């Protein structure tokens, strides 16, 4: 099979990720609104927000590292989405694989930590330390799940995993072959997206949105863009591992939107856990379920 | 039990010299004492009559008599009644002793009264400003302080465009009760005065 990287893919995949991500942000706000018996924002609202934020005419920047932090935050996700195959485009998924993807998904938090450190706002420091602690927590079940699935399919190549699931039909989907890993993956998804009850690192009323406290204008615009990519990357990864990827665009979109709305629906009904409770919870239940699933697989 | 406690309290209060006791209602007792005897009275009320809760300290300005009247409101949980201890101090030095060692919350009220009336309480732990931190005029609650004159001197008033109502009506709005016909319009009061 030709493993030549199509350069057009590398430009188109982040663009598609951005557009689908904006759709997911709209979905999130609409679900929140409907759950609260409101109407919610109009269709292009995420676009208006991002354009407006980038169009601010005066800007306070705290230094070079502040800006580099935001660039890292978006850049990590942009790199991650080129490793996630979509119907018709594989990008560099064959060259990278799950290990590179797992590393790429950790870069945004670290970049944000750098940027927030430069801001020197105590709210931001508290928020980002909580975010990194929560990341320490959810990475354990996340890695177990991801490599459990890799073990199940015998390779870390996402293209191959998707091809096997599509060739075999629903019976070979990850969710059917190992439902325990899928459940642990949902926990991990909730924590990775930072949704209630694991939303401690934002905590708007307590620490004034934590890491985002000094971000305004183009920085906040960058973070909004990062949110689009984050939702997209997390849900596409879950779909590729457990739901057989997308045979064509319609099923792909349906599956990813379905996966991303599960954490959202759960999120708006819950308050939030404290950081130590998050760590305790996530190291207990999803880890146990994932290890149990792994144990079943090993037999 | 209430009757017993009330008679006991009345007899207790007779121990303080120069006291005047007036019962306002079943739960309200008004006590007038000299300025020297007040701390002893409060000590008595707290220690022996179970009035452990200081609700508030208020100050009344009597400019004609040249005095400040300090009122100490104390509440008893056991007897469920309030005793207001009134005392007068001369306005000129405006200094009094603090009851901080009898009731700890007194520090807060005394700080407030110092800010608003200018009464200094000796022995109070902190007399610094906390409400009117940006204020450098006279103590504002004194009767000689004319708030309206001060406001007219230090602030500007808004310029209204005279056609403001026509603009509103053109957009479909309006005023339901015109200002001339409102009950508490200033114009009516000034016309009658």
């Amino acid at each position, binding site marked *: 099979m030709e493993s030549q990287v199509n350069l057009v893919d590398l430009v188109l995949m982040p663009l598609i990720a951005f557009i689908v991500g904006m759709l997911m942000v709209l979905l999130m706000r609409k679900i929140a609104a409907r759950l609260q018996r409101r109407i919610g924002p109009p269709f292009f*609202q995420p676009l208006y927000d991002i354009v407006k934020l980038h169009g601010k005419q005066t800007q306070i920047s705290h230094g070079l590292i502040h800006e580099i932090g935001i660039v890292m935050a978006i850049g990590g996700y942009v790199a991650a989405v080129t490793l996630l195959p979509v119907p018709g485009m594989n990008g560099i998924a064959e060259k990278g694989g799950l290990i590179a993807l797992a590393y790429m998904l950790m870069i945004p938090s670290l970049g944000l930590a750098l940027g927030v450190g430069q801001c020197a706002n105590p709210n931001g420091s508290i928020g980002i330390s909580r975010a990194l602690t929560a990341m320490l927590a959810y990475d354990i079940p996340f890695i177990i799940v991801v490599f459990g699935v890799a073990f199940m399919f015998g390779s870390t190549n996402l293209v191959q995993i998707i091809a096997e699931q599509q060739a075999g039909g629903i019976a070979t989907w990850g969710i059917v072959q190992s439902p325990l890993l899928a459940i642990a993956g949902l926990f991990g998804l909730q924590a990775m997206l930072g949704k209630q009850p694991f939303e401690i690192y934002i905590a708007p009323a307590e620490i004034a*949105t934590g890491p*985002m406290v000094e971000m305004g204008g183009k920085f906040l615009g960058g973070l909004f863009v990062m949110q689009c990519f984050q939702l997209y990357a997390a849900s596409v990864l879950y779909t590729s591992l457990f739901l057989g990827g997308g045979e064509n665009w319609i099923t792909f979109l349906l599956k990813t939107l379905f996966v991303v709305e599960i954490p959202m629906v759960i999120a708006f009904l819950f308050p939030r856990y404290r950081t130590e409770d998050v760590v305790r919870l996530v190291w207990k239940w999803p880890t146990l379920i994932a290890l149990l699933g792994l144990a079943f697989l090993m037999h | 039990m209430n009757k017993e406690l009330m008679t006991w309290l009345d007899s207790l209060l007779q121990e303080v010299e120069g006291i005047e006791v007036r019962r306002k209602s079943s739960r309200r007792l008004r006590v007038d004492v000299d300025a020297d005897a007040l701390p002893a009275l409060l000590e008595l009320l707290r220690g022996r009559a179970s009035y452990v809760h200081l609700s508030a300290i208020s100050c009344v300005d009597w400019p004609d008599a040249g005095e400040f009247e300090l009122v100490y409101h104390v509440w008893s949980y056991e007897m469920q009644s309030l005793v207001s201890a009134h005392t007068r101090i001369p306005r000129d030095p405006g200094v009094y002793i603090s009851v901080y060692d009898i009731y700890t919350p007194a520090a807060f009220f005394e700080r407030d009264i110092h800010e608003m009336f200018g009464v200094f309480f000796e022995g109070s732990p902190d007399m610094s400003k906390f409400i009117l931190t940006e204020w450098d005029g006279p103590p504002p609650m004194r009767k000689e302080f004319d708030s309206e004159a001060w406001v007219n001197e230090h602030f500007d008033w808004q310029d209204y465009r005279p056609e403001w109502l026509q603009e509103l009506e053109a957009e*479909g709005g309006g005023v*339901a009760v015109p200002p001339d016909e409102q009950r508490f319009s200033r114009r009516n009061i000034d016309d009658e005065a």
Partner: protein
Amino acid sequence: MSSIDNIPVKQGRTKVRQRKRTNPLAGVFDEFMDFCQARSLFMLHYCTGCGAIELPPAMTSRFDMERLGIQPMVTPRQADILLVTGYVAVKTLKRVILTYEQMPSPKYVIGICSCTVNGGMYWQSYATAKKLNDYLPVDMYIAGCMPRPEAVIAGLRDLRRNIERGEANSWEDYFRNYDYYLGHQQRLFGENWQTPTNIISEAEHYGLLGEGTRGEHTALLDKHQEPLEAQEMKLEIPELKRR
């Protein structure tokens, strides 16, 4: 005078007057930015006085503000609109000015409730500011005591219409006429009033220097200005120290 039965209910959308231009492509980008700005307003959740009670109903289910694109944000760095709801005590006014200067432009100040207009109920008080636009440039006043959520939303829609037309530029006025605002602020707070933000150098940087930026009051500011140092963060808990 009108009675309450005669007040008609306004229906339909207010039309946005098209800006006249000779070249159809001139200012298209500015119009697009104004279009997006009007449809996405982040209000600062810093509600000064009693009028703040009318904002939660405007945000929640019954009078949903999010369908107009308005959502609350918690820090001034993220917000566009500063809502001054209710009376502004002198103490609060200092913090409001500090907050206003931290917001990125374009920013809008809305004075809700009559107390910001002309003193309202507290017009005789020595401790409240009477006329808000002496101290900050105000884009929109919404009178009332307090205005109902429908009135608040009507005011916000008027602001939106003004933004789309390109008429809501009072943030530039703060830079161009800084001396006027500083003069009123010094009259209220004393001559030693200074903020961490250096408005004049910001105005120079963004090309918004006007004739009214420097004047006698800024000269006073230069005389008294001290470099502000970061405060040391200390936690003094006597119980812990005793142990």
